[in-house]
């Protein structure tokens, strides 16, 4: 297949266009500015909707409006901007609206830095905004995967009537890699009988809202929502496993950090140290069962989670393993990127410690 060199942000934007994104709403912030820049040109070419909103808050509420009208809608931003969108994401969840949100994470807290980070893991996976909600969270570790997942994101959002977040970092947005545009079967047309498209011959008015003042109704809605989450969890966890069969230590990492961890693991193989990589692709729902199986093997002596944060995904790793294996953590914060040599050194230290 013909390969083309694409910058992450632009490839993600083009993938959204090819996935049938009808409407993009955004507000500029580094390191994801190439997404709205690319969309401003491409969406016009395709005769679709592009709006540079007056703020992040406006953008996410425009997404809400377009999604309510049955359109495939998306927005993108980076950490501080995603914080501003939290209210809107909670409303999307409450109204069960499909939408795609891209977060090219940068170092926080506050305005922080424009360099890569993974410190929005909690914000994305625990409960976006307020209330007992979740969204599907996908984490690509390269540009080809970002492109493929972008197309899946819209399908998943429509199928489950839920916001889907692509959680990447500034490095994925800024780097260039070769990709192949795959011929995909057309997405299954999802019927949206709930969409506010005008009454027409329907006989009743559709009404999209997240407001349910009667608590009995609201609890019933919450229970249905939790049932939906359980169904998603049963079907949709994705992960990648590299060199884990004989590993004495399992690295757990996602996104850019997974590639750095893999470089460390390859380096250690040359020294006779057997390290493998478990890479969650769905961060929510987290691939708990798969991790239990991989780390539960008798050859595994320890687990090391590597993140560009002070330690967030490591909580899911500990919850999954429930003390079955020792779980260690190595992270860099504030926009600094872990180096393969640092990760390798940490693995040597842990294995020595576990031996003692």
């Amino acid at each position: 297949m013909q390969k083309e060199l694409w910058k992450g942000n632009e490839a993600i934007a083009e993938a959204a266009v090819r996935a049938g994104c009808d409407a993009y709403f955004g507000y500029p912030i580094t390191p994801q500015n190439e997404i709205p820049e690319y969309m401003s040109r491409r969406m016009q070419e395709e005769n679709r909707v592009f709006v540079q909103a007056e703020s992040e808050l406006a953008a996410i509420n425009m997404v809400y409006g377009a999604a309510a009208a049955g359109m495939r809608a998306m927005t993108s931003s980076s950490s501080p901007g995603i914080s501003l969108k939290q209210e809107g994401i909670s409303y999307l969840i409450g109204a069960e609206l499909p939408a795609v949100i891209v977060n090219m994470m940068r170092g926080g807290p506050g305005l922080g830095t424009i360099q890569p980070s993974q410190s929005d893991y909690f914000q994305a996976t625990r409960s976006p905004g307020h209330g007992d909600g979740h969204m599907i969270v996908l984490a690509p570790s390269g540009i080809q995967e970002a492109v493929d997942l972008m197309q899946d994101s819209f399908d998943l959002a429509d199928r489950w009537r839920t916001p889907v977040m692509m959680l990447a970092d500034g490095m994925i947005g800024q780097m260039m890699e070769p990709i192949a545009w795959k011929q995909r079967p057309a997405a299954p047309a999802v019927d949206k009988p709930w969409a506010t498209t005008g009454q027409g011959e329907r006989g009743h008015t559709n009404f999209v809202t997240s407001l349910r003042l009667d608590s009995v109704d609201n609890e019933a809605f919450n229970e249905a929502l939790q049932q939906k989450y359980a169904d998603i969890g049963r079907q949709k966890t994705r992960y990648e496993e590299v060199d884990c069969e004989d590993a004495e230590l399992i690295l757990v990492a996602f996104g850019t950090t997974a590639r750095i961890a893999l470089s460390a693991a390859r380096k250690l193989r040359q020294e006779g140290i057997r390290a493998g990589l478990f890479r969650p692709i769905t961060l929510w729902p987290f691939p708990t069962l798969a991790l239990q199986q991989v780390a539960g093997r008798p050859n595994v002596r320890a687990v090391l989670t590597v993140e560009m944060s002070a330690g967030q995904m490591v909580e899911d790793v500990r919850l999954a393993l429930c003390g079955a294996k020792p779980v260690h953590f190595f992270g860099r914060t504030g926009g600094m990127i872990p180096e393969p040599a640092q990760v390798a050194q940490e693995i040597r230290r842990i294995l020595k410690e576990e031996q003692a």
Partner: protein
Amino acid sequence: MTREIIIAGFGGQGVMSMGKTLVEAGMAEGYNVSWVPSYGPEMRGGTANCAVVISDEPVGSPLVVQPNELIAMNGPSLKKFEPHVEEGGLILVNSSQALEKVHRTDVRAFYVPSMEEAGKLGNFKVANMVMLGAYIAATGALKMETLEQMLSRIFTGSKAPLVALNIQALQAGAAHIK
């Protein structure tokens, strides 16, 4: 084999496009490649660098900390990255701008007066292509023909006359590597 390369210089020296040309050519020869720019606030008016990986296996970390090869387009870049080059690696210095010498004795060093060579061709803008030609000659990382083919694809239409100039620049750089 995996080549991890850092190309560094002032903004405006064509550092980013050198890296892009390399990865395009690497991709054309069937290698796995990645290109990561420094995108800090220093891009505006200050130093610029990019990390390139060309490998026959899938690229792990696209971030390069210890390059095998460094192309230093100015003095500050040489000073900043020289200590990080891997033992036995290679440093290519743009001696028109970096007056310092390489201090390390455990790496191969080449000096290319890229501006003088570009000046001889009548266009200072091709100094980066002079360096790239020297890089290819010094490392044999990729075939010179591949780069030349890339150039004919980059410069088309009204810019087509630039193809010959850029190829001459590549060759002038290569001629400096003995």
